[in-house]
């Protein structure tokens, strides 16, 4: 029987959040996500654009069949397990880490931006639906059977691949290759896998337990993870090439940019990487229960306006300090996700716009006590990224701060490129790759921030997926010619 034409529902089904007063003093996850009933309601709003047209699929860097998974979800309204299993199968075809992407993707700029429903009302809440599928599947033991299914159809051992780095690019590349039947070994420098997902993204945005389970799934797919291994130091790229058919470099952009202004060596001026690594990876917010310390004052200034700045600001807030985000441009040019900016505002983070730091001022003990800024003025002209150009006004303000966190960006870590002669880099340290993401060394591929400088989790995952296909083609062609 044909369905009656559904009425367009313009408003999204909301997801509950932990109240501000409860969350600002803890690291619990802020958004609570959908349950099946509300997910179903939200799924019903989707008008089901055909896959060859669907703008959401085009907007997704890994091209998840979004209408497909939403349809699967609502096809079994009386059997949530079956509905989720079918939806997860569709998602896994393109993305093995939906619990992560459902949480950290800037959906409003990607899949949800061109959603047809957005023209008449609010776009479908694709991110939260994806997260629901992943969370429900994990909680209800739905993943195991599906994992076996994915492993069963790949026809066995096709080759050996080494993946350098266990961040979003590396995990995705490894997952895709494992599904195709490759034996994959990931080499990770830190003592826990996840890369930026574990050291950079706080618990309140991506709980560690969820990340750990997503990674455990890769292990189920046969991926081996060697921790405490620094490629370029512990083992060379050349040695990897002797043992593996191909190598993927997903080492990210781990080197913090610093402000070259007086006072940069003062105490309690952190890079966002140091601050977040201490908190996220080493659980310094639980010091002295955990051994890694963090020292923080009463007034914190965070410099920058991306997701990292929001994460640092909200983490600092949870450690009990007042926080101000200082940005040299205006509100509309902030690069953080809207949801993160909103959460920061709700939680009490203050903002200062059009201020550019020129000096850190210290006290007699060498600790920072204030930051001097030049006031900036926007021009009508726009730069190559579409942002308004700014100029200094020659006027200065000084804001008190006993803690400063610098979150102005990152560059690729050069450990591998310094060690592996023949691995070509651009002047900013990013690796040179061709259209198949192959570097200047045959058989060595790269993706994510290692080639992009600084981008998003999902773009890194898109690269990981694209590289996996290219690696598959490369190895099969090599074997055919052998």
């Amino acid at each position, binding site marked *: 029987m044909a369905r009656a034409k559904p009425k367009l529902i313009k408003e999204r089904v909301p997801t509950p959040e932990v109240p501000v007063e409860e969350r600002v003093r803890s690291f619990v996850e802020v958004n609570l996500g959908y349950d099946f009933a509300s997910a179903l309601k939200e799924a019903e709003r989707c008008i089901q654009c055909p896959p060859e047209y669907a703008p959401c699929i085009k907007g997704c860097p890994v091209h998840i069949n979004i209408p497909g998974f939403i349809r699967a979800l609502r096809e079994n309204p009386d059997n949530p397990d079956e509905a989720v299993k079918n939806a997860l199968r569709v998602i896994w075809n393109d993305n093995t880490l939906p619990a992560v992407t459902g949480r950290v993707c800037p959906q409003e700029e990607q899949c949800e931006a061109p959603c047809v429903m957005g023209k008449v009302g609010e776009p479908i809440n694709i991110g939260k639906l994806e997260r629901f599928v992943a969370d429900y599947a994990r909680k209800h033991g739905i993943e195991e059977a599906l994992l076996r299914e994915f492993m069963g159809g790949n026809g066995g051992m096709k080759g050996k691949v080494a993946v350098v780095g266990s961040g979003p690019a590396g995990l995705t590349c490894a997952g895709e290759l494992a599904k195709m039947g490759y034996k994959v070994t990931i080499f990770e420098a830190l003592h826990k896998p996840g890369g930026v997902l574990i050291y950079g993204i706080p618990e309140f945005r991506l709980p560690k337990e969820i990340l750990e389970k997503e990674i455990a799934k890769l292990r189920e797919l046969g991926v081996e993870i060697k921790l405490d291994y620094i490629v370029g130091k512990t083992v060379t790229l050349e040695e990897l090439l002797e043992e593996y058919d191909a190598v993927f470099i997903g080492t990210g952009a781990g080197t913090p940019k610093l402000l070259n202004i007086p006072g940069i060596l003062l105490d309690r001026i952190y890079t966002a990487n140091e601050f977040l690594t201490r908190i996220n990876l080493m659980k310094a917010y639980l010091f002295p229960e955990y051994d*890694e310390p963090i*020292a923080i004052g009463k007034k914190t200034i965070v410099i920058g306006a991306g997701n990292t700045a929001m994460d640092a600001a909200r983490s600092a807030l949870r450690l009990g300090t007042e926080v101000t985000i200082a940005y040299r441009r205006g509100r509309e040019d902030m690069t953080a996700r809207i949801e993160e900016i909103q959460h920061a505002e709700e939680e009490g983070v203050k903002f200062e716009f059009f201020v550019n730091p020129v000096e850190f001022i210290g006290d007699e003990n060498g600790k920072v006590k204030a930051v001097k800024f030049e006031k900036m003025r926007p021009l009508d002209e726009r730069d190559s990224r579409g942002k308004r150009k700014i100029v200094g006004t020659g006027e200065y303000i000084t804001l008190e701060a006993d803690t400063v966190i610098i979150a102005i960006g990152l560059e690729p870590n050069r450990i591998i490129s310094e060690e592996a002669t023949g691995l070509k880099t651009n002047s900013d340290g990013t690796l040179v790759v061709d259209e198949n993401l192959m570097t200047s060394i045959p058989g060595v591929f790269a993706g994510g921030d290692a080639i992009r400088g600084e981008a998003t989790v999902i773009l890194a995952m898109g690269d990981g997926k694209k590289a996996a296909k290219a690696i598959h083609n490369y190895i099969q062609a090599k074997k055919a010619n052998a």
Partner: protein
Amino acid sequence: MGYKITKKENLSAIDFFMEVEAPHIARSWKVGQFVVLIPDEKGERVPMSVYYADDGRIGMFLRRHGITTFKLWYEFDVGDEILSITGPLGKPIDVKYYGNVVFVSDAVCAQAESYATLKAMKEVGNYTIAIQTFENAANVYPEKYLAKPVADEHYLTTEDGSVGIKGHYLDVLKELIEKDKVDIVFGGGKLGSLKKLAELTRPYGIPTIVTVRQIMVDGTGMCGSCRVLYDGEIKFACRDGPMMDAHKIDWDDAIKRNARFAEQEKIARERYLAKLREKGVI
């Protein structure tokens, strides 16, 4: 999965020796490089100097000083596993013929480096001189752990004169320099002494390469915690060091930055020692 402790021995009133099974590091470690270890799940990441890397094992000297080293001394024995050890990190030093090579040391990490460096330097034909300084007789290591076997000349000094020469390595080095027999100085240990060392050798133009010990988290250049002012530029001790030209370091800033977590370190240490007292361990 962890890394097994294969040897552990007391060195002095304050320092101890520990050897850990870590073939992935031992195969690629070179003189000048360091490792980062974490004792257990709640532990911190601590950079450590290497005494030797041999037969799949890493030998280290540690000082019972902070929570991590107390933990390793009181809770871990041969056969136990530590959570993590990573490396080798940092840049190796240039091992080649210099002539008369001196290694000066006045603290635990540098005593380990003294042996490792001079051994490598002797193998390539250098004349090797070790000056090892300890606070007092109780802190001096058993002879087999000193750099004696790899040094053509070995000087042991104590600051209170209870054993060996009374004084500091700076005093002995000054005499050697005046005798005109120093082509290069390597060294490590207390940052305050390294500052004085830089001032001592600078007028003579003697190349002086020392370990710039700074607080680190990852050890790969990711966190920027160990940044130092080097020849007017920001460098990272973990990535650009740890052994760097002593004449180019801004020592006053380096000394200040290395004390950044003194308050927290004290809290952690006192809390841990109180727990040990409660249990009757100490």
